[in-house]
């Protein structure tokens, strides 16, 4: 009996020892076999998950800290199919979701019962659902649960209605609280995480921050804190929202009343190179960017070079005065025509204006006179001045999509002797509004040209970094700038221009450029009407440029654009706290 027991005990011992040895052998085998590393990786797959954490996209503010672009919470509405099948509630989900989210019931039901991928365990019904609608769905879901709890266990009934399996995953999407205000400056950020045009594109690296890949342990014993990912930098623009809004109202009205194809209005600080407003019509609502994808020009201020016309005479006269070729009172007898390089140049009204001074030439915008002035300056000097004013090269303004029209100069294949004359009054060459404003800004700023920009500063990692105004050149002398400003102030006053503003002396010049049509040449009744002006004349605080494309009511800049300048200045002096000249000079004397 005892022997039997001992034998059995021995047998059990051997069995355990063998089993232990087998386990040990298998452990050693697993650790050292050829597929050990693969097995280890397979194990890690179930231990950790790698997540790419995107920081929140930085905000965009106007110069006084008012939000222009932020982020709002939205939901991705989806269904956990296995849970839904367990509850047999596809009809309930389809019914509620289609009602709340304005979707077709059959389509939703079809997606749930016959998903495109038969092996799918989760289907997305709709993404970017607003917070309001998402919360409504949550509320209905909770009401169902409450009802089920009151009625007893859900499983006790055959199929009580419920929304189990319906999941709402919150996330952020780009939002523009001002809708279409300054949209041509901001650009937009798509749902595919693409920054398109404007500030969004230009400063995308700053705004998006640095995505960080983190390893998250699934084992709760090994969970570590996910590192704080700093959000993208927030940008502060030079744009003043109030000025921008007023300018957009003004240009919208001007485009409508003149029947123009488009309108552009810039307000620029000549002392710093900051744009206070950059209004554009038409413009988009970046919250619904998909409705505007066929827009030809997103921001005409930077992406549409065109022949500026007579406003360009300001630069021609600046070159001539600075060069010493002419003085404000230099006489010129206008015969109504001048021939340059075989091309006859006429005045805008094709008439002869007789004896004039340079002041009169600018006041009456005489093409013949300005052609003569350019000839006196000489081609080499003239184009040197234009280059100094930045014509023919990009301004490098910090907005995406800046276009360039190369300046043809003597020696180029597309430059002719007559080009000197036509260029003198802004035909035969092209500039963008930003180029022109930057160049004329030098005249308003005592000859010093500033780098145009729209970024005032940015906030990154809890610190604010402000940009500093940069001088990009001094194309003309201070005296020249002041003389020319004086000339253009008097010319407006003597002409009794519609651009004048009571109580404020301003300088400015109208522009009416004929538009060249391929195959037809210049067409007289199709023009670009414009006005560039600055003020107050004795201490300019703003440069304003208005461009109306192909106005229908009248082709002339003096008729359609000059009155807009007056409206703009009336608003600007209030918004920029600029007192009337007599008050300002009186206060300065105190």
């Amino acid at each position, binding site marked *: 009996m005892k022997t039997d027991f001992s034998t059995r005990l021995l047998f059990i011992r051997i069995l355990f020892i063998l089993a232990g040895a087998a386990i040990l052998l298998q452990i050693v085998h697993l650790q050292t076999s050829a597929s050990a590393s693969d097995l280890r990786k397979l194990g890690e797959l179930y231990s950790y998950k790698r997540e790419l954490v995107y920081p929140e996209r930085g905000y965009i503010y106007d110069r006084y800290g008012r939000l222009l672009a932020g982020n709002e919470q939205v939901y991705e509405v989806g269904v956990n199919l296995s849970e839904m099948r367990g509850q047999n509630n596809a009809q309930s989900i389809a019914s509620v979701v289609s009602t709340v989210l304005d979707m077709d019931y059959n389509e939703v039901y079809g997606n749930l019962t016959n998903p495109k991928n038969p092996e799918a365990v989760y289907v997305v019904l709709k993404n970017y659902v607003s*917070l309001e609608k998402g919360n409504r769905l949550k509320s209905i879901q909770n009401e169902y649960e409450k009802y089920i709890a009151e009625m007893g266990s859900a499983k006790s009934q055959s199929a009580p209605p419920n929304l189990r399996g319906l999941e709402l995953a919150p996330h952020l999407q780009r939002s523009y609280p001002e809708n279409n*205000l300054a949209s041509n400056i901001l650009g937009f950020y798509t749902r595919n995480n693409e920054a398109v045009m404007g500030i969004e594109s230009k400063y995308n690296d700053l705004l998006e921050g640095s995505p960080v890949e983190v390893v998250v342990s699934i084992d709760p014993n090994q969970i570590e804190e996910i590192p704080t990912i700093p959000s993208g930098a927030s940008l502060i623009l030079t744009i003043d929202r109030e000025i921008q809004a007023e300018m957009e109202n003004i240009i919208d009205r001007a485009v409508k009343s003149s029947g123009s194809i488009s309108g552009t209005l810039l307000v620029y600080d000549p002392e710093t190179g900051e744009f206070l407003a950059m209004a554009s019509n038409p413009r988009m609502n970046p919250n619904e960017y998909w409705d505007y994808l066929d827009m030809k020009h997103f921001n005409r201020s930077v992406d549409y070079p065109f022949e500026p016309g007579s406003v360009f005479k300001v630069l021609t006269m600046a070159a001539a005065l600075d060069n010493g070729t002419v003085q404000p009172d230099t006489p010129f007898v206008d015969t109504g025509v001048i021939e340059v390089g075989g091309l006859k140049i006429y005045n805008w009204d094709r008439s002869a204006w007789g004896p004039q001074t340079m002041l009169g030439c600018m006041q009456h915008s005489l093409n013949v006179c300005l052609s003569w002035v350019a000839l006196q300056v000489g081609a080499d000097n003239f184009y040197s001045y234009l280059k100094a004013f930045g014509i023919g090269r990009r301004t490098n303004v910090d907005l995406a999509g800046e276009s360039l029209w190369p300046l043809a100069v003597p020696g180029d294949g597309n430059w002719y002797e007559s080009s000197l004359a036509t260029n003198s009054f802004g035909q035969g060459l092209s500039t963008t509004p930003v180029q022109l404003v930057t160049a004329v800004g030098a005249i308003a700023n005592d000859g010093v040209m500033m780098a145009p920009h729209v970024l005032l500063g940015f906030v990154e990692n809890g610190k604010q970094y402000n940009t500093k105004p940069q001088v990009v050149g001094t194309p003309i002398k201070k005296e020249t700038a002041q003389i020319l400003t004086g000339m253009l102030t008097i010319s407006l006053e003597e002409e009794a221009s519609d651009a004048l503003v009571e109580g404020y002396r301003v300088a400015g010049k109208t522009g009416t450029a004929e538009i060249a049509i391929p195959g037809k040449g210049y067409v007289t009744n199709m023009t670009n009407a414009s006005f560039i002006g600055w003020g107050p004349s004795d201490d300019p605080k703003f440069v304003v440029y208005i461009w109306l494309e192909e106005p229908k009511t009248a082709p002339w800049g003096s008729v359609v654009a000059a009155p807009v300048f007056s409206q703009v200045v*009336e608003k600007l002096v209030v918004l920029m706290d600029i007192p009337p000249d007599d008050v300002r000079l009186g206060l300065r004397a*105190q």
Partner: protein
Amino acid sequence: MAQGFIQAYRQAPWRIQIQRIGSILLLMVVAALVAGVYLSISAQSSAIGVEIQVLENNRENMQREIANLKNQIGVLTSAVEMEKRAKEMGFEKVTTYDMEYMLVPGYPGRQTAMLAPFSGTEAANRQVSNPGFTTSLWDWLARGVNYLSEQTDEVLP
């Protein structure tokens, strides 16, 4: 003699068995204690791990909520909304003819947004408490001695 001595003091077999059983039980108790402590710590660690996950989720939710609230403030204070509200309250847009200007000495004009301390400035680290609260007794004595010696130097011929 020696044999008799050993016999006299040999443990009774039942005592040896009890000792062995006691030792095994002691080992088992120790093992159970170690296992218990391990399980307890492991459970606490897991609970804290889950809590960290919950807190991280909360943090993400709050960040989204903050972003959303900022956006809502942006919508409520947008140019169009503010103008609408101002009109409803009876305000009118001012024109240059309605304005009266006065000189305010020292007023620098409207300043641009400062959303964070400027880079390069030490505003964030600036000491706001009275230095007296952080000065050590030794520093106070040294400063006093320095002050006295400076006073003495000044009166010396």
